[in-house]
């Protein structure tokens, strides 16, 4: 039987849910996971071929415009403004990080002892919806948040005197950021190939293990080196955060999106590969859900056998996708360098590794855009579960926000107009961030090559690559998927 008094209460407090969802949306939060067949049915009715063509033409137009605008405009575009001094915030940062540590410990506890349903347990909801969807998206708007939110540095600074501390071991510099890059690949493999990445107790064990692994690494090798070289998400969030207009450092600075990424100084090959890996892995995540991929595997997408049956091909595909993507990108850069160096004096020639290292950063916006678009619908659904779970975080029958009887709805995926709006929003995100990539690549080329002709020559293969990737990204949105 239903309880009208409780339902009325829920209704009165539903503003809170709406406000939270609005917050996520307006701050750039996005995601998907429970796409229903009907939503894809509407997408198949949309004139997506036309939209894809329009998206690609928009990127082509941006390439042409960027090619002919004065170079000093481009340089000026990425010059930030300082808004105010933030001052020394290490204490505040440490305090927030400590709260984050406590929250992570509590979530691990909830994972082990809370509800077994991943849509009512706050651990998987927080990890996959709040952290992997909303906080990543938020980093594209406000950079540097992970320095505050990470669950290690506050406790580390509380336990150790980090300024004068002599560590037991030292990480070889030659390792560069390769450990973080490898860990990211393993993380992605878990995300897309594990049979139950959102099983609460399983996830709790993994989160606890990774927390401990990182903290021990920091204790043994020192926080700075470990976080910079081995902690995958420090590297990841630093990269994504560098795209944000607003940067929170000792000073608050604001500028054209991507300005901080272009001003980060030299980039190691490992970080360049990390950037490529973010896009390649995200793209493969999308590709592995398509009918096209299922057909390649000989799997009937309408009778999807479940993740357990596809672990090996998914992992193999992920590794192959990363390898092929890095190879293709390297080929584009190599060709561009050959074209730009053609007929130059030896002293003016730019070597491949330098160009590869710097131009990889221009892929970041595409990677971010794809992440946001890919998870957009999942976020709209699973964020509802988050808010309902917050109403009763320990599953003891509490009803803090009056939402325990709220019915999660996917109604917005069941009308043609809303599906069209969502699709166009996803496509708009992808196309606009491709255009940002084009502009950033051109800016980087400006610093690498001296003459306009050489700059343009260097950009031809990369521009073709970006047009192709726009097509690919939009095709992934339009093509039918099995899960």
């Amino acid at each position, binding site marked *: 039987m239903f309880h009208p008094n409780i339902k009325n209460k829920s209704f009165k407090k539903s503003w809170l849910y709406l406000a939270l969802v609005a917050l996520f949306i307006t701050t750039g939060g996005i995601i998907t996971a429970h796409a229903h067949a009907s939503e894809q049915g*509407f997408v198949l009715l949309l004139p997506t071929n036309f939209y894809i063509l329009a998206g690609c033409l928009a990127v082509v137009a941006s390439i042409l415009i960027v090619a002919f605008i004065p170079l000093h405009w481009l340089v000026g575009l990425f010059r930030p403004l300082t808004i105010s001094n933030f001052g020394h915030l290490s204490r505040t940062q440490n305090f927030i990080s400590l709260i984050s540590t406590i929250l992570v410990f509590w979530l691990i506890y909830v994972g082990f002892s809370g509800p077994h349903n991943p849509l009512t347990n706050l651990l998987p909801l927080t990890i996959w919806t709040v952290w992997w969807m909303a906080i990543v998206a938020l980093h594209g708007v406000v950079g540097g948040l992970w320095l505050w939110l990470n669950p290690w540095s506050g406790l580390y600074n509380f336990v150790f005197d980090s300024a004068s501390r002599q560590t037991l071991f030292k990480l070889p510099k030659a390792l560069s950021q390769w450990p973080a890059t490898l860990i990211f690949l393993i993380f992605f493999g878990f995300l897309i190939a594990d049979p139950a990445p959102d099983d609460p107790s399983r996830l709790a064990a993994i989160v606890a293990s990774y927390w401990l692994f990182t903290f021990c690494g920091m204790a043994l090798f020192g926080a700075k080196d470990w976080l910079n070289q081995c902690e995958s998400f420090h590297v990841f969030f630093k990269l994504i955060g560098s795209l944000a207009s607003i940067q929170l450092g000792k000073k608050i600075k604001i500028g054209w999106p991507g300005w901080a990424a272009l001003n980060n100084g030299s980039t190691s090959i490992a970080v360049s590969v990390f950037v490529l890996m973010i896009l390649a892995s995200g793209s493969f995540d999308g590709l592995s859900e398509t009918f096209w991929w299922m057909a390649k595997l000989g799997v009937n997408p309408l009778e999807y056998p*479940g993740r357990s049956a596809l672990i090996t091909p998914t992992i193999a595909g992920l590794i192959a996708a990363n390898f092929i993507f890095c190879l293709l990108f390297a080929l584009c850069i190599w060709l561009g360098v050959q074209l730009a160096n053609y007929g130059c004096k030896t002293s003016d020639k730019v070597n491949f590794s330098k160009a590869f290292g710097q131009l990889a950063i221009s892929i970041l916006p595409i990677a971010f855009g794809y992440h946001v678009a890919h998870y957009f619908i999942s976020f709209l659904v699973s964020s509802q579960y988050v808010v309902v779970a917050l109403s009763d975080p320990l599953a003891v029958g509490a009803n803090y926000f009056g939402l325990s009887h709220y019915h999660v709805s996917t109604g917005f995926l*069941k009308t043609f107009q809303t599906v069209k709006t969502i699709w166009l929003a996803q496509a708009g995100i992808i196309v606009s961030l491709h255009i940002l990539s084009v502009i950033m690549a051109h800016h980087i080329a400006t610093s690498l090559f001296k003459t306009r002709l050489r700059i343009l020559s260097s950009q031809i293969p990369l521009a073709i690559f970006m047009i192709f990737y726009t097509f690919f990204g939009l095709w992934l949105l339009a093509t*039918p998927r099995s899960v």
Partner: protein
Amino acid sequence: MKNFDLTKSTLTRRKVLKTLGAGVAAASILPRLGGIAHAATSEPIRIGFQAHRTGIGAAYGRWYSRATSAAVTRINDMGGINGREVEIITEDDGTDPKRGAEVIEKFAKQHEVDVAFGTLYSHVVYGSAPRAGELKLPYFVVSEGHHVASGKLNRYTLQPGITDVKSQVQAMAPFVADNLGKKVTMIFPDFAFGHDHRDFFTAAIEAQGGEVVESIAIPPTETSFTKYFPRIPRETEVIYHVMVGPAVLTFVKELGEFFGPNRPELFGFIDSLEAVDFASPGLEFLEGSYFWEGMARYAQADQTDIDKTYRAAVGVDNNGASISDSRDVATFSHMFGCWETLNIIKRGMETCGYQGPADRQSLIEAVEAMSDMPYSLDHPQGAKRFNGKTHQTFGHQYISQVIDGKLVVKHKTSIEDGLYEDEVDYTKQSF
């Protein structure tokens, strides 16, 4: 800590009971809890809900959860089972057969549930049932598949709350032959689901003096269908279609463009458009066509109090959509199976005086002994007749016509229309 999200209201009452400090006194104040208060043990009856919360079945899983929650709330409000509160323990199987078997194992060994219940997708049932049999855990599926009655499973697996596809398809044939035509072209997806329809309906329509003049199997990954339509013979009087997946709307749109206003009769299974609004673009072509429905999505002109009460309990309005979002159409032709199955589990446990896992075999025997179940709030879809030998229930089916964009029931089949020869006798299998 257990998953109490489905039973919060009863937990609140338990706290009330504790506060009052005397079960008898509380029972006089809250009469519907009298049974719970007098139970020999305060331990709840634990039902493991094997839910498709993620994966390909997530859309169904959401509504199965809602129906389950509503049914358990009602059962507990009526005093629980044998005076004990019912607690649902939800485990996500990811709509994955291997995980399904693992979930069954967790239910039996970790959660120590009394029974497992709620699986929809056939491949998950196939993956889970053997483990349930090995662990001697009663496993009540809500799947529609013919797998239970075909004899491929085991004594511990039952499907008492929803009819199977063979029965559903067979029951359609008399109406189709008598009212729509005897020359049928079938269009179906080229895998087991479509093949079942092809095989069962071909036999059933021939028994009615009709024939399938063409069977068009569509590859599962197909997204454009126009090239298949010229294969539809001119003599076709009825097109029987059971397309599923994201391309269904495209299929209907292209079928409409192919035929224009002069189409043969159309008969489909609502599985194609379950949870899809009939007002969706392209579906105008379906106006006047017929569908099988497990339970009428739209409240009918002669709506009963039982239908009203059931809809209110599961939170579905008169158009088959969520009361909190009129765009959110329910999987109305399937979700009743959870509600009815839970009521059957309750009745079975009460019949055998179920106390705990030691009585699991008695529970299965009690359910096997069931037969006719009258139309009631326990069975809002309609009366049922359970076959204890095949562990499969039989019931009424609904044939509805799309009129002004809504499904109007035109025919209700008899239970006898869906009966077929037993293919197994599970009661002869030892426990």
